[in-house]
C-alpha cells in the first residue's frame, strides 16, 4: 500500500515536471540566465566586438558622476510618471464612475474608451504626431477657435513632454475597464442601506464607492508606475528625445547605450539602476497602502 502511494506520488511529480518543462526551460534560458549575466555585465566594459574586462564599480560611478544624461533622462521619466500616472488614475476612476450608473449604451462607451488602448502602436503614435502638428494640427486649430495660439508642441522644449503625457493619458481604456469591474463588485445593499440612512450621491461615492474600490486603484497605480518608467516608443518615434533632450526618457538612454553605442556593460548598469528606482517607489507606495487601501479582512 505504501509502495503504491509512493509510486502515485512519483508519477504525479513526473507529470508535473513534464508539463511545466516548457516554462522551466524558458525561465532558465530567457530569465534566470540573462539576469545573472546582466549582473555580471554591470562590472564589465563589454561591447559587441569585445567580451570586455572587469572594471569594478566604474559603470555605476560613471552613471552618477560622469553622465549628465543619466539624471536628465531620469528626471524626464519622473516628470512623465508623476503627471501621467495620477491624472490617468483619477480620470479612469471618474469615467468608470459615470459608466457604472446602469446607463444605456455602456457597450458603446466601453468600446470608445478601449479602442485607443488596443490600437496603441506606431500607427497611432504617428497619428498623434499629426494632431500635435504646430501649423495644421487638430489641437492647435481647436485652440485657435478659442482665440488661443497654441505652442509648437513636439518641437517646443516646454510643451513636448506634456504632449507625450496627453498621448499616454489617451490610452487609459484598460484602467477604465478594470476600475469598472471593481465598481461592479461593490454589493448593491451597501448603497441601499446608505440611502435609507439619508446619504446623498456625493456621500455615497466618498464613503462607500471610493474606499471599496481602493484595491483596484492600488493595482492600477502600481501597474501605471511600472509601465510609466518604461515609456519609450512615443518619444522615440516622434521626437527622438528632443528638442534638446526635453523628452529623452530613461528607456531611451538604455536603448542608446545598449544598441546604438553597443556599450552592453553600461546599458545593463542603467537597467539595474532603473529596476532599483522602480522597486523603491513601488515599495514606498506599498508601505502607504495600509493607510488608504481597504481590505475585507
Amino acid at each position, binding site marked *: 500500500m505504501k509502495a503504491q502511494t509512493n509510486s502515485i506520488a512519483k508519477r504525479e511529480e513526473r507529470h508535473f515536471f513534464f508539463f511545466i518543462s516548457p516554462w522551466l526551460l524558458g525561465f532558465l534560458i530567457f530569465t534566470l540566465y540573462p539576469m545573472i549575466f546582466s549582473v555580471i555585465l554591470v562590472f564589465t566594459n563589454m561591447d559587441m566586438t569585445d567580451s570586455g574586462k572587469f572594471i569594478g564599480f566604474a559603470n555605476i560611478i560613471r552613471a552618477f558622476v560622469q553622465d549628465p544624461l543619466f539624471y536628465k533622462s531620469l528626471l524626464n521619466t519622473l516628470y512623465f510618471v508623476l503627471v501621467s500616472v495620477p491624472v490617468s488614475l483619477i480620470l479612469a476612476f471618474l469615467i468608470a464612475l459615470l459608466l457604472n450608473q446602469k446607463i444605456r449604451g455602456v457597450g458603446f462607451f466601453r468600446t470608445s474608451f478601449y479602442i485607443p488602448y488596443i490600437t496603441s502602436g506606431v500607427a497611432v503614435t504617428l497619428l498623434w504626431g499629426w494632431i500635435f502638428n504646430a501649423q495644421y494640427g487638430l489641437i492647435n486649430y481647436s485652440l485657435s477657435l478659442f482665440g488661443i495660439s497654441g505652442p509648437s508642441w513636439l518641437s517646443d522644449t516646454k510643451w513636448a513632454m506634456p504632449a507625450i503625457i496627453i498621448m499616454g493619458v489617451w490610452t487609459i481604456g484598460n484602467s477604465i475597464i478594470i476600475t469598472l469591474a471593481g465598481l461592479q463588485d461593490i454589493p448593491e445593499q451597501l448603497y441601499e442601506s446608505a440611502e435609507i440612512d439619508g446619504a446623498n450621491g456625493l456621500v455615497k461615492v466618498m464613503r462607500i464607492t471610493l474606499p471599496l474600490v481602493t484595491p483596484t486603484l492600488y493595482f492600477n497605480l502600481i501597474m501605471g508606475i511600472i509601465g510609466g518608467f518604461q515609456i519609450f*516608443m512615443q518619444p522615440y518615434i516622434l521626437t527622438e528625445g528632443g528638442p534638446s533632450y526635453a523628452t529623452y526618457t530613461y528607456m531611451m538612454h538604455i536603448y542608446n547605450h545598449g544598441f546604438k553605442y553597443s556599450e552592453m556593460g553600461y546599458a545593463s548598469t542603467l*537597467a539595474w539602476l532603473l529596476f532599483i528606482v522602480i522597486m523603491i517607489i513601488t515599495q514606498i507606495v506599498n508601505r502607504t497602502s495600509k493607510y488608504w487601501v481597504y481590505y475585507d479582512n
Partner: protein
Amino acid sequence: MDTYYKSKRTGDLIRYSLSYVVLIICAGIFIFPFLWMLSTAFKIPSEAYTLPPKLFPRTFTLDNFIEGWKYADFTRYTLNTLTVTLLATLGTVLSASFVAYGFARFKSRYNNLLFTAVLATLMLPSQVTLVPTYLLFTKMGWLDTLKPLIVPSFFGGGAFNIFLLRQFFRSIPKDLDEAAYIDGANAFQIYYKILLPAIKPALITVALMSITFHWNDYMSPLIYLNSDQNFTLAIGLQFFQNSFGSSQIQMLMAVSLITVIPVLILFFVGQRHFVQGITMTGIKG
C-alpha cells in the same frame, strides 16, 4: 412624502442626463483622432494641409492607399507581421495552457515554489534581461530573423497567461479528469481532449491579447530586425515616416489606417473575450 420622491426623481434625471453629456464628450475625445486619421487618409495633399481643417474631404481619393502601400514593401511587412503574430500566438496558447495544466493538476513538493517564481517574473521589468537576451540571440545567429520574436513564446507563453489559465483549470472539477483516467486516458489526452475544450473561452481571451500585443509590438522588432525584407509593419511605418517627415501626411495616415484596421475588426468580433480578459487582470490585484 410624495414631493420627496418627485424631487428625488428629477434629481436622478438631471444627474443621468449630465452623466450622458459628459460621457459623450469624453467618448468623442477618445474617438475623434481616429476619425481624423480616416479623413486625412482620403484627402488630396492640398486639402490635407489646409486651414481650417475639414472633417469631410471635398475630393475623395484612394491614391494615398495605393501610393503609400507601394512606396515601401508593405506587403512584405504585413506577411512578416502576420507570421510573427500567428506563430507567437500559437506558441503562447499551446505552451501557456500546457504549463498551466501542470501547475493546476499535479502534486509536487516544488509546485508552490515554482509557481511563486512564475509570479515573480511578472514583476521583473523586461529591460533588465534585454541586453543579455540580445547577446544570446546574436550568438545563436538569430539576429535579423523573425525567430527572436517567435520562439520565446513557445517556452511558457508568458507568466500572466500561465496564471490566468491555471485559474481556469482549477475551476473545472477534478472528477472530470478522474473519470477519463479510469476510462484509460493518459494525462496528455486528458489535457488535450477534455480540459482544453472546457476552457476554450479563456484560450480565446489569451489568443486575442497575444495577437494585439504582437501586432503592435515595437521594441523587439526594433532591436532584432535590421534589413528591410525582415521588417514588421511597426518598423516599416517608422521607416516610412523617417523618409517623409510630415510632408506626406495623407499617405502616412492611409497606411497607418490599414495597419490599425485588423486590430479593430478583431476587437469588434471578440469584444466579450477582451473584456473578460481585462476583468481577470483586475482580480489579480
